[in-house]
C-alpha cells in the first residue's frame, strides 16, 4: 500500500514497512546520517538522523513511516543538535582530517560541512588507540572509529564472517576483531569483503592506495553529501 507523510512541508510517498529515512531517500531528500546505510539493517546509534515527528524527537532510520506524519528535519534547532553530535564524534576520537587518507571521501567530515560545523567546540579526549597494520592489504586506524557498527553488520550479514564486533561499554566501547591475538592479520578478512568497503570514516583503509585520487578531486569535494546519490539511498 502506498501512503504519504510530510517532511519539512514536502509530501513524501512511502510503502508499508519503510522507515522515514528510506522513504525520504527514495524521494531524493537527504537526511544526515552516519550509522545508516541503505543496504544494511538500520541500527539507530549515531542519532545524526534524528528528526521531529509530530513534535517529538526520533531517529528517522529506525522509525517506520506512517500515514500523515508531520516530520521536521532541516530546521535550525535540529541541525544545531546534529552539529553538536558531530562535534562530539570529533572530540571523542582523533580526527585530524588533513592527515587522513579518507579526507574528502569521509562521511563524518562531509556531514560536518553540511551542518556548518566550524570548530570542535568541546575539549578533545585524545584517546590512546593503537593502529593495527598486521593485515597485508588493509590498515585499521581505530583512532577514527565512530562505532557505527557498519563493518560489524556487513561482516556478519553479508560476508558471514563476524570479523568485527564492539566490546567494552560506555565511553570505553571499542571495535575488536575475531582473533585471539586481537589482530586483523590473524582473521580471515579479505579486501573483497563487504566489510572492507563500508566504513564511513577512515578506519578500514586499503593499503598502498593512499592519495591515489588527489585531495580536491574526491567524492565530497565535487558535490556536497546532501547531493550524493549514495547517501540518499538512490544507489
Amino acid at each position, binding site marked *: 500500500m502506498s501512503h504519504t507523510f510530510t517532511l519539512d512541508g514536502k509530501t513524501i510517498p512511502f510503502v508499508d514497512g519503510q522507515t522515514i529515512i528510506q522513504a525520504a531517500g527514495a524521494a531524493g531528500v537527504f537526511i544526515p546520517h552516519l550509522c545508516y546505510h541503505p543496504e544494511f539493517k*538500520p541500527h*539507530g*546509534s*549515531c*542519532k*545524526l538522523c*534524528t528528526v521531529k515527528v509530530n513534535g517529538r*524527537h526520533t*531517529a528517522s532510520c*529506525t522509525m*517506520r513511516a506512517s500515514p500523515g506524519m508531520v516530520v521536521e528535519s532541516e530546521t535550525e534547532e535540529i541541525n544545531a*543538535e546534529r552539529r*553538536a*553530535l558531530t562535534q*562530539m*564524534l570529533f*572530540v*571523542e576520537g582523533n580526527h585530524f582530517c588533513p592527515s587522513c587518507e579518507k579526507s574528502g571521501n569521509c562521511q563524518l567530515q562531509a556531514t560536518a560541512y553540511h551542518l556548518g560545523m566550524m570548530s570542535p567546540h*568541546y*575539549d578533545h*579526549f585524545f584517546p590512546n588507540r593503537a593502529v593495527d597494520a598486521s593485515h597485508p592489504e588493509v590498515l585499521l586506524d581505530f583512532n577514527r572509529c*565512530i*562505532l557505527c557498527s557498519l563493518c560489524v553488520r556487513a561482516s556478519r550479514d553479508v560476508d558471514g564472517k*563476524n*570479523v*568485527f*564486533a*564492539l*566490546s*567494552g*561499554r*560506555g*565511553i*570505553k*566501547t571499542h571495535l*575488536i*576483531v*575475531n*582473533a*585471539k591475538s586481537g589482530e586483523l592479520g590473524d582473521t580471515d578478512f579479505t579486501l573483497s569483503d563487504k566489510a572492507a568497503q563500508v566504513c564511513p570514516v577512515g578506519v578500514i583503509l586499503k593499503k598502498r592506495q593512499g592519495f591515489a585520487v588527489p585531495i580536491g578531486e574526491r567524492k565530497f569535494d565535487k558535490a556536497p553529501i546532501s547531493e550524493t546519490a549514495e547517501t540518499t539511498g538512490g544507489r
Partner: protein
Amino acid sequence: MALNDMHAEAVAGVVDRVVARYHRDPTCMVQILREVQEACDWISPEAIDRMQVTLGVPRTKIEGVAGFYAFFYTEPRGKYRVLFSDNITDRMLGSKAMMDRLCNSLWVERGKVSEDGLVSVAQTACTGMCDQGPALLINNYAIAGLTAERIDEIAELIRGKVPLAEWPPAYFKTEDNIRRADILLNADFKPGEALLAARARAPSDGLNSSNMRSWREGLPSGIGGPGATLDEIKRANLRGRGGAGFTTGLKWEACRNAPLKAGAQRIVVCNADEGEPGTFKDRVLLSRNPDLVFEGMTVAAYAVGATRGFVYLRGEYRYMLDHLNAVLAHRRRQNLLGKDILGLPGADFDIEIHVGAGAYICGEESALIESLEGKRGTPRNRPPFPVTNGYLDQPTIVNNVETFAAAALIALNGGDWYAAIGTKHSAGTKLLSVSGDCERPGIYEYPFGVSIRQVLEDCGATDTQAAQVSGPSGICVAEAEFDRIIGFEDIPTAGAFTVFDNTRDMFEVARNYVHFFQHESCGFCTPCRVGTSLLKNLMDKLHNGCGSPYDFTEIEKLNQLLQSMSHCGLGHTACNPVLDTIAKFRPYYDQRMIQQDFTPAFDLDRALSSARQMTGRDDAGAHLVSENGGAA
C-alpha cells in the same frame, strides 16, 4: 596450582562442564561467563577458545559480551576481587577511608591486582546496601556494615588465603531493616493461596472464555480464570513499580493478545536488576518473601498464558541465588510451578534465574532482554515492544519485583480491595528504600500519597536540606517542597529515598551521580556515550575550581541534547541531578565560580603533578602559580 594460572586443560574442563549444564545454548552466555569466572577467577583467552568451540559462536561475540559487563574480567584478576560500593551514601559513611585502609594493609593500589595475583581492590556502583553501608562485594558476595576492625580482619583472611566459604558467616549477614510495614510486608502469605484464589475466580458463565490460548487452551471450556484475573489487575489500577508506572493490566493484556508464532511461547520476566543508586527494596522483598514474588509471576503467567519465566537478578545480589533456587525447587515440589500447576491441565509454567554482571542499563527492559539472550545489554529500537517481540522475539512482559508481589496480593484479595488503598491515581502501597542522613534507614512501606515530610519524620531525619527521590534519575526535593507527595500524580518513584542534611555539599552529590551515569552509559548512542563524559568532565572542572558561568550554559545545552537525542531513559535523565541542584542549591555551584567569564579546564600546575611525583619534589619551586589562582 598457582593462582590465576590454571592450565589450559583445566580451564577447558571447567568450560565444558558449565557449557554442558547450559545445554550448549549461546543465549545463556552471560550465565556461562559468570560461572566460568567463578571457577577460574577470570575469563582467559583459553576459556574463550574453548567456548568458541563448544558453543559454536565466534570469538568476537564472546569478547563483545564479556567486555560489556563490569563484573567480567578478561585480564587476570585477583583470587579475591574486592569492590567497594561507591554510592553517595556509602561515601557519606566513610567508604573511601575503608578502601584506603584495605589497600594500605594489603599493599595494593586501587584498581590494580596485587603483585602476587592474590587480590584486587576497586570501586563499583551502588550495591544496594545503602541502609547498612559502607558495603563491599568480594567475589560478588556482599559484606555490609564495614568497620575498621572488620577491614583489618578481612585483610588478614585474604593474606591467609582463607577460602571465602570458610570466612565467618556473620560477615555475609545482611539486614532487612523493615521500619514500616503495610499490606505487602505484613502479608501473612501462604504459598499457593493467590493462585487458588485466581482459579476460584473463574466465572462459570463462560463470558471471559473467549480468546483463550496456551495454558488456557488446555482448560475445560467455559473457565475464564485468566481473563478474570486480568480483570482484577485492571480493576486494582496497578501501575508498575519499576519507575515508569505503566499500567500493568494493559501491559499484560497486550501480551496476552499478541499473536504467537509457531513454536513460540509467552514469557514473564521479573526485573530484579535494581540498579538505581539508593534503591534496595527489591532485595528485601526477595529475601523476605520470595514466594510472594514468584507467585505474582505465576499469576501473571496464568493471566497472559505464559509458560516460561525469568528472574533477572542483579549481579550484586548473587549471594541470594542459592536460596532463591531452593525456594523455586520447593515450589515445584508443591506443584506451584512445573506442569499442570494446582492440577489445572495445561497450566505449565516454570521460572529460571539469570544473574546479571554489573550493568545498570540492564534494568532497562529491552536491554535486560538482550542480556537474557546472552548479548551485550544495549537497549533495543522500539517499536516493536517486548509485549509483542520480546525474549527471542516472543511476547514478553517485564515487570518489577514489587509489581509482581502486589499482583499476587491482588489475585488473592481482589482488585477493589487494592484500589481502595492509596490515592485516586496511585493505587496501593509503595516500598521506599530510605538511606542517608537519618536515624533509621531501611524499608518503609506506605500507602501512596505520603508526604516527603512524613517520611523524613518517620525515619528520624533532622536538619534535612534535600531528599533525592527515585535516585539519580529522579528528582531532588528541597525543603520548600517537603509537602509534596509520593505518587504518580506528583513525585513518582522506583523506591530510592536518600536524605541529605545541612552538612552535605549538594554539588558533590550531583557530581557523584554524574560519575555514575558516565560509568553506566551503555555506549550505544552518541549523545549519551559522549555527552555523559562531557558532563562528567564539566563537573570535575567545577570541582577542581575552574568553574565559570559559561559552564552552566554548557550544562544546559548538554541536557537539551541528551533529552532530545538519546536512545533510552538513561541518557534522557542523566543531567537531572545537575539541573535540579543548580536550580535548588545554586550557592554550592557559585562558590566554585572563580571567574565571571570563562576558565579553562587545563591547569598548568596540575599538569606538573605527575612530574613532581616522579621527581619526588614538592617544594614551592616545583609549583606554578597560575593567573587565576587555580593552583591547588
